Structures are given as structure tokens and as C-alpha cells.
């Protein structure tokens, strides 16, 4: 529809983001719909996925490694040693006040030690050509690998968070995960040696061809010619026809690149959908629902509730991590400053609730519908405002003000949508369907 009204290019970019949103929503849906765990930290996992994309695809910055790589590696070693020592203390000694204090002392002194030992290295790295690099770079592998690595990163973080926070009551868990994701973003924003921070990483490698290359490739030009042969044959003049073809090739190339992305994302969505559907109807899925609906009963039946909660927390977060890496892949740039809880946590939750928690198709539908409305809310509300105020002259202050604030109607739309769904269809558009055979 947008393809017809606006352009195919915009339609496809909305479609791609819909696919990514659908993946994120599936991740959140696994946690909330299958197991009843609230995770308001989606933003943090998305950002980690994006970080993975950077670390995998960017070429390593040799100078920076020479300048400060050793210090960074030493700091990493120190962290590993610290964790091992703490684990050793936790295992060897009984729980007591002394143990708690000594662990706290180890952590504090360790952080100070790492700060002082890594400081010169970090400064040296950040001083290497700060306008272009100023960070360690990555491994220079194809960016598609980062989708897996992003999942691993996010899963790793989820393991730590889950160990720490999963024992909390539902609304505490929500707040704790929200705050932890803010900490993750703060670290990504300000550790320039790793991520370039707010200086952003741009020009990441692509899994799809570049528009400029396509425009000079013969088979692509022929393809465009074939598609538009009807339109082109109307034009008699040869020079005009060539110009029209060039225009079409330029348009076609960006559509083609977006189609490549859509294909890749579609594959991911379908694979995830098959896996999650299988999981939902497997004995494991039944167990998760049992745990969600009655924790004590499931516990009494000998199911390890804590372990399963942790597992599903990690799985869901890993899927969100994939989505984060996909997002950065499609944008081709990593901007830590753009990760805001409104867009990456609460909007995803609106998708989950609206689509239908516990239903994978519902999650995908929610991702599509909500993202489409989020993008198209401004044009729609502009149309509505113009329609209702048609009788009022253009110079009217109220009308001008309303038209100026059109971008904010999307918040209103989302909020009202969420409230209405919660009130009149609390299970979402596609409610959870459980077949009992």
C-alpha cells in the first residue's frame, strides 16, 4: 500500500524494519508469553547485538592494537582472575559477613587496579587517528557472522542478569532489567576504545551488493530493462530512452539491495518461527507453560524452575541480540546514542502485547502492525488534521501548532492502542492457542 502511495523504496525499508521488529518481538514473546518473565532490558541486548556487528565486521586497527592492545588484554586477564577468585571464595567458604565483605573488597580493589593499569592503553588507543578510528576495530569477518555472535553476546549478558535478578518479583524484575540495560548503554556509549562511543561507527560491510556497483553491472541493467520494457518502448527518442533507463536503474538498484536484505531477514524470521513453534508444542514448551501458570505445582512435580527460567531468559535475549545485529547490518552504522528505552524497549513491549503474548504468529503480526503504525502515524495524523481543520485558514495558530507537532501523534497512537488492547482484548489480536490432544 505504501509502495503505491509513497514509493517502493520506503515500503521495503519499512518492511525490513518490520521483519527486525518481528524478531525482537519473538524474543520478548518467548520470555513473557512462554514463561511469564518480564524483560524491560531489550534495549541493552539490541545494543549488544549491534556491538557484535561492529566487532565482527570492522577491520582490525593494527596501530591501535600496537598502541594499547597489551594493556587491554592485561585488563581482561585481571577480570578473568578476579571472577575466578570470587568463584573460588564462594565455593570454599561458608556464607558469612566476612565472606561478603572480602568479596566486596576484591571487586573494588580489582576495579581500581584495572582502571589504573588500563588507563594508559585506553588513552593510547583513543589517540590513534581519533577522527577515523580511535578504537580497536574488529575481526574483519563477514557481517552475517555477527548475527550469531550477537546472539552469544546477548545470551552471555542475559546469563549474568538472570543469575542476579531472576529471583525478584515481577515488577522489581522489570525495573531491574530496565536499569541494567541503561548501564549497558552507558558503557557502550563511553568506552570509546571498544565502540568509538558517541562518535559512531559508520560504513560497515554489507552482505548485499552496493548500489553504485549494481548501477554499472550489465546483468542488472538488462534485468531492469526487461522489467520496464513496456514503459521504455513508449519513448521513441533513443537518448530519452537511455536517460529514462538510467533513472530506473538508479531506483531499481536501491530497491534491489533492500530486497536482498529482506530475503536474508525473511530467512532468519522463518527459521526462528519454525524453531519457536516446535519448542512451543514440545514437552519443553508444555513444561514452560506449566511453570508460568503455577510455579509451585511445577516445582512440586520436580521441574527445576530456577534453571528453566534462566534458560528461557537467555534464549529470548539471544534472539533479541540477533535482531540487534540485523538492525546494524541493515543500517550499515552503529550509533550508540540512538538506543533509547522508548524505541527499543517499550515499543517492543507494545508489539508483544498487541500481537498476542504466547503466540509466535501474534508476535510477528504485532511487530508488523505496530512498526507500520509507528512509521505511518505521522502521515496519517497529518492527513486527519488537514481533513478536520479544512475549514480553518492556514494561518490559524492552533492548526499550525498541530501540524508542527505531527511527529508526536505516534506516541498518542501507540499509547491509546496499548490501552484499548489491554482493556478489550487483553490477550492480544492473536491470542495464545493451546491444542489439547
Amino acid at each position, binding site marked *: 500500500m505504501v509502495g503505491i502511495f509513497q514509493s517502493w523504496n520506503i515500503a521495503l525499508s519499512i518492511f525490513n524494519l518490520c521483519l527486525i521488529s518481528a524478531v525482537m518481538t519473538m524474543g520478548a514473546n518467548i520470555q513473557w508469553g512462554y514463561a511469564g518473565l*518480564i524483560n524491560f532490558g531489550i534495549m541493552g541486548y539490541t545494543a549488544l547485538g549491534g556491538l557484535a556487528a561492529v566487532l565482527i565486521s570492522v577491520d582490525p586497527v593494527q596501530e591501535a592494537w600496537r598502541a594499547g592492545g597489551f594493556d587491554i588484554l592485561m585488563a581482561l586477564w585481571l577480570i578473568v582472575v578476579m571472577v575466578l577468585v570470587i568463584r573460588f571464595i564462594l565455593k570454599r567458604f561458608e556464607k558469612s559477613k566476612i565472606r*561478603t565483605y572480602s568479596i566486596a573488597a576484591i571487586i573494588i580493589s580489582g576495579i581500581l587496579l584495572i582502571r589504573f593499569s588500563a588507563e594508559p592503553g585506553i588513552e593510547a588507543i583513543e589517540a590513534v587517528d581519533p577522527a577515523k578510528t580511535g578504537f580497536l576495530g574488529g575481526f574483519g569477518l563477514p557481517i552475517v557472522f555477527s548475527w550469531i555472535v550477537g546472539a552469544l553476546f546477548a545470551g552471555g549478558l542475559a546469563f549474568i542478569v538472570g543469575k*542476579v*535478578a531472576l529471583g*525478584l*518479583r*515481577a*515488577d*522489581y524484575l*522489570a*525495573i*531491574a532489567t*530496565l*536499569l*541494567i540495560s*541503561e*548501564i549497558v548503554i*552507558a*558503557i557502550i*556509549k*563511553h568506552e570509546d576504545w571498544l565502540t568509538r562511543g558517541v562518535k559512531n561507527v559508520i560504513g560497515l560491510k554489507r552482505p548485499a551488493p552496493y548500489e553504485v556497483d549494481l548501477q554499472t553491472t550489465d546483468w542488472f541493467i538488462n534485468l531492469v530493462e526487461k522489467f520496464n520494457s513496456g514503459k521504455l518502448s513508449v519513448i521513441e527518442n533513443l537518448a530519452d530512452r537511455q536517460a529514462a533507463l538510467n533513472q530506473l536503474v538508479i531506483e531499481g538498484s536501491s530497491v534491489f539491495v533492500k530486497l536482498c536484505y529482506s530475503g536474508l531477514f525473511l530467512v532468519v524470521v522463518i527459521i526462528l518461527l519454525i524453531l519457536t513453534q516446535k519448542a512451543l508444542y514440545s514437552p519443553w514448551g508444555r513444561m514452560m507453560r506449566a511453570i508460568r501458570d503455577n510455579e509451585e505445582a511445577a516445582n512440586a512435580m520436580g521441574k527445576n524452575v530456577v534453571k528453566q527460567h534462566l534458560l528461557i531468559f537467555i534464549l529470548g535475549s539471544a534472539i533479541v541480540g540477533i535482531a540487534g545485529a540485523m538492525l546494524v547490518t541493515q543500517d550499515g552504522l552503529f550509533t550508540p546514542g540512538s538506543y533509547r528505552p*522508548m524505541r527499543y524497549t*517499550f515499543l517492543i*513491549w*507494545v508489539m508483544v*502485547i498487541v500481537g498476542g503474548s504466547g503466540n509466535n504468529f501474534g508476535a510477528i503480526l504485532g511487530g508488523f502492525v505496530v512498526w507500520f503504525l509507528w512509521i505511518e502515524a505521522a502521515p496519517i495524523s497529518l492527513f486527519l488534521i488537514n481533513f478536520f481543520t479544512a475549514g480553518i485558514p492556514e494561518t490559524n495558530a492552533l492548526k499550525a501548532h*498541530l501540524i*508542527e*507537532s505531527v511527529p*508526536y*501523534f*505516534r*506516541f*498518542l*497512537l*501507540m*499509547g*491509546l492502542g*496499548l*490501552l484499548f488492547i*489491554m*482493556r478489550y482484548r*487483553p490477550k492480544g489480536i492473536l491470542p495464545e492457542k493451546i491444542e489439547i490432544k
Partner: protein
Amino acid sequence: MDFVNAIILLLNYIFIPALTYGSQLALGAIFVTLIYGILRFANFATGDMMSFGTMATILFTWYFQSLGVSLGVLPTALLAIPFGIIFMILYMLLIDKFVFKYYRHQKSPPVQFAMVSIGVMFVTQAVVRIIIGPADRRFFDGEKFIIKAREFKEMTGLNEGLALKSTQVITIFVTIVLVSLLFWFLNRTKTGKSMKAYSDNEDLALLSGIDPKKIVLVTWVIAGILATIGGALYGLDKSFKPFTYFNNMLPIFAAAIVGGIGNPFGAFLGGYVIAFSEILLTYAYKKFFMYVLPASLEPEGLVQLLSTDYKFAVSFSILVIVLLYRPSGIFKGKVL
């Protein structure tokens, strides 16, 4: 003399800003904790409700300014706050009637309430941005400083200046008055006591003839007062920007939980705990040590524990630690 200089330095850069910021957080945290204790849900719309109240205050301030009304040295906003409060309370009651009431009657689980409050958050954010726009706005007028740094230096002959902004004094003064009134209300009056009883045990309270409608009404009224004043003070001291207010929700939550959620006194202190730890951990102590230590021991670096970029992260880490070791907060035991 150096020692006095060092003290003044800390007062100027740590103590007074932290006390002001802490007061602003404390008002928000009491708001969160009251809603949590009596209406029993975590209100994710906190920050945006505060920005709504501030917005109403700003609009009235502009109106008064256009009429030429002013309070002389004091900011005009003080005159506008009561009107802002009325608007805030009306808005809150409207939302309660159309949104929260239904779930209260359904006895929905707190998680559902939290989700609904996210819907309210979206709507409030939209309303604020549509009415006043997302831009950064200052609405402070009147005398800016009570003591200027230069005057203080001349007066005392010290090297370090102590600047005292009038907004800081107003914030601290208003907070003290408001919080003491609130505690007097909760502990001494009949309505306050019945609110406590309702928060302690809903069924028992209903059985002894406490009217739940009245309790809910009074809670929203108090919440409206706290939200508007807290938000307006923050806006006077810094500036008003809807996005900042949304972000402030996070340290406010941290303060409420650190203090023991459901416990207003804990929330009050929690605000200061968060504010002081944020500022203490991110302040560069180099100058302080230059005054205190002999010249030979002077530090080389900035002597900063964490860079200021991690300001928010500090308060969240404190929260995580508290949640781990004492999930019920520092002041546990008493509910409300």
C-alpha cells in the same frame, strides 16, 4: 585556611548540588512509593506525569508573565505551581477513572497494572509534546543568585567561592516544608492513618469501614501535589525538557526501591542516597587534595573514581546491589 578552602570547595560542588538534586528525586520517589503502597503498582508513567505537571506550571507562568504579575525576586513559577497542581490532579483523576479503575475492580495482577501504566506513559508523553513541544525550556525569572561566588570570595577572603542559587534554596526549603506536612498528614490525621491501614491490609481496612474510593482519591491528590512540585522545582533549577523528565524516572525508581518501596520515609532518604552517591563517586577530587595534602603529596590525575559519563550507571548499580542483598530496601519492615 587551606582546610576551610577545602570544605567550601566540597560544599560548593558536592554538598549543595547533591542536596538539591536529592530533594527533587525524593519528591518523585515519595510519589512512586505512595502509588506503589496504596494502588499497588509500579507506575512507569512517573516521569511523564511529572513533566505534565511542570508543563501546566510553565503555561501558567507564561500567562502570569504576560499579565505582568511577578513575585519580585522570587520566580513567578511559584505563583503558578498551585494552578499547575490543580491541572495535574484533574489529569490524574481522569486517567484513573478511564484507565486504572477498571483494573482495580478486576483485581488485576501488578504486572498488568505496570503494562497499563506504560500505555499511560505513551499517551502522557504525546500530550506533553503536542502541547508544549519537545524543546528545552527555561521558565526561571527573578533573582538568580543569593550569594555569588565572587562576592563570597571578597567577603571572606578565601580562595574558593561559594555560590548559592536561589533555586537551590527554594528547592530545599519547599521540600522540607512539603515532606513534613506529608508526614504529619500520614501519621497524625484520620485520613492519613486510614491510608496506612489500607496499604497494610486492604481487606481488614475495608472491613473496618474505610472508604476505598476516598483513599484512592486522596492518594492521587497527594501524588499530583508531589509530582507537580517535584517536576517544577527540577525545571526551575535546571530546565524543562520532556525527554529529561522521562529519563529522570530511572533514578527516581532507584531512590524509591533503595529506600524500601512502599515506605515514604525510606523514599525520602533514598533520594538523597542516590543523589549523593552519584555526585560523590563522579567528582574529581584533585583540587580538594591539593588543599588538604602537603605539596609533596599532590595527586597527579584528577582523582576521579568514575567519569561523569557514568552518573546514571552509579545509581543503577547501587540499586542492583540493594536488590541483591536487601530486596526490601534499606528501611524495611514497615509498609507505608
